[in-house]
């Protein structure tokens, strides 16, 4: 299998790490290498992708056919048009949980010891993983969108569809770093699995992904309106359904930047800390 396509400017091994440009080039090359490795692993083990798509379709079917009638009637909306963008965001969020699980499993494998003894940028171990998961997420989102299309959902424009899916992927990528930080801190895969329920479920259920905020109890509404999954659902909905962008897009981008700013350095610092 010949997977190495990226060109990388080779560094001399005697190259000093103090050279910032060289260090950056090295980090990029390492990240590409890890991205290649994680992608090969994903392709060889497509269960995660299949699981993400099945979950997305499950939510589509469950909410549309079981709860859809009552929620839609209560809010006087076309529920499928409302639901699909939310499910795209939830699917991306699930992908982020898989980053957490996958990385924890990865860290418990022996190969991690080798990475730590190699002259490589240690950020690359996590960055390669989150990027590969973003690519997998993108594939999953496209498949879920296709199923939604078969169920009767319509994007207003092709461009809107691209923008919506891209934004959902970006949100998933940001949450991947949260998942990575937890995985690096906790390490044990089963503990990571349990812990991810604590952030995944509140964000998922107390959000505007499945139902409008007005339908929720008053005390929950402030959280339900401004938490990242809600603003992301609103923003993806606006992009997908062509209802014009408003503050939710900027709030979403703000959340993405904030999450990255917090969890990229945090997960890298935690990873550097030797056990």
């Amino acid at each position: 299998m010949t997977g190495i396509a990226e060109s990388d400017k080779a560094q001399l091994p005697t190259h000093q790490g103090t050279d910032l440009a060289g260090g950056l080039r090295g980090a990029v090359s390492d990240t590409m290498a890890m991205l290649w490795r994680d992608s090969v692993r994903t392709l060889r083990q497509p269960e995660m992708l299949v699981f993400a798509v099945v979950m997305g379709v499950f939510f589509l079917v469950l909410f549309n056919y079981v709860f859809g009638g009552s929620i839609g009637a209560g809010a006087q909306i076309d529920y499928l048009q409302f639901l699909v963008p939310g499910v795209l965001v939830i699917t991306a969020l699930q992908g982020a949980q898989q980053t957490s699980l996958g990385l924890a499993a990865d860290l418990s494998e022996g190969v991690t010891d080798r990475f730590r003894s190699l002259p490589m940028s240690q950020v690359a171990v996590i960055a390669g993983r989150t990027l590969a998961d973003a690519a997998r997420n993108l594939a999953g989102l496209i498949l879920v969108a296709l199923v939604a299309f078969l169920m009767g959902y319509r994007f207003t424009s092709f461009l809107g569809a691209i923008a919506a899916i891209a934004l959902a992927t970006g949100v998933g990528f940001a949450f991947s770093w949260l998942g990575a930080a937890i995985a690096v801190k906790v390490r044990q895969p089963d503990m990571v699995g349990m812990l991810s329920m604590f952030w995944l479920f509140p964000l998922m259920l107390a959000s505007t992904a499945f139902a409008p905020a007005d339908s929720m109890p008053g005390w929950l509404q402030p959280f339900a309106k401004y938490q990242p999954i809600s603003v992301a659902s609103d923003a993806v909905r606006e992009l997908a359904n062509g209802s014009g962008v408003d503050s939710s897009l900027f709030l979403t981008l703000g959340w993405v930047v904030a999450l990255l700013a917090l969890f990229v350095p945090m997960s890298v610092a935690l990873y550097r800390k030797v056990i």
Partner: protein
Amino acid sequence: MHSVLQGLWPGRGSRVRPPTSIGAQGAPRRDLPPSGGTYLKANEASQVSDRYMDIVSTNIDTMSTSNSTVIEAQGLYKSFEEIKAVQDLSFAIPAGKVLGLLGPNGAGKTTAVKMLTTLLPIDQGSASIAGFDVAERPEAVRRVIGLAGQSAAVDEKLTPRENLELFSWLYKIPRKERRARIEGLIDRFDMTEFADRPVAKCSGGQRRRLDVVAALVAQPQALFLDEPTTGLDPRSRSELWDAVQALAAEGTAILLTSQYLEEADRLSDHVIVLDKGREVAAGSPEALKKRMGQDVLEIHVSSEDDRSTAVGAVTESAVMTSVAGSQQLDINVEGGAAQSLQLLRRIDDAGVSIVDFQLRRPTLDDVFLALTGAPTSDSGVTPS
């Protein structure tokens, strides 16, 4: 500037042997690797540049002579809470030499290797590889070491070829060179048969072999092999032994850990025996063997009383170790079967009933008994 990557692999050719004076701490090697064959090609010798000299000339903080120490440890200490894993360990390995770190389970071998390879912080003392301080310049150290840890550190989902591709990419080996080098390694270490099968489907020994080869992709100056032959079949074991000797002959400094006296004897120029984190003996394998060279007659009796009677019966004529309270005597025999029979007869005559006996080659435990007068932590007394 010369790249250390310029040497071709394999067929990098024979390296300039380090001056023989380096062998001061160990006897010169008796058995050099098979020349001619895969490792050393005389006609390629001319194109070889001395990569150690490259490093020396481009880094001010490196040792200044060709007689340089590549791996150096000075007074290393490491504790895990109350467990003292390594205590006051010091050694120096010059280019082209092999140090064997010998010891039973829990002796601290892996801990020592992990400290030297930047995987564990050093509590006390200092270590340097090719002149780079391990604590201060971990990045630089990682560029010049190769590590095959005790548990296989390769990606289970990738094939061996993909693993080697990944590691050489991460070592920043130019893309053009990677393919040739990987093919060379696969060839040299006889991995063609399983090179394209995911590692999860390779046998334990094949995985082990890949792990060792993965440590070689960047042609390290310092190679760390933590129990490299555990789980290998006799043929792979002896192939690996040959490879280790060839690498040493090419100038690599090698730290090897083992539980087997035979292995350390075969490969090492110098041996350090560890127990409970402390050095209990050090010297050339020859010297250690001289102290423990004879066969051992191991006799089991049925009671402590019988044991002391037996000890009394043969104590005049033999060197032995026998732990009080046990039911076992280990007698060093020089005269083989004849002397053994004589000893057994004498014990029998003293009225002791012998439950069992065997004549065997000395083991690491015997070395420990001879060196420390105490059994190793986990060998102990044979229960009745």
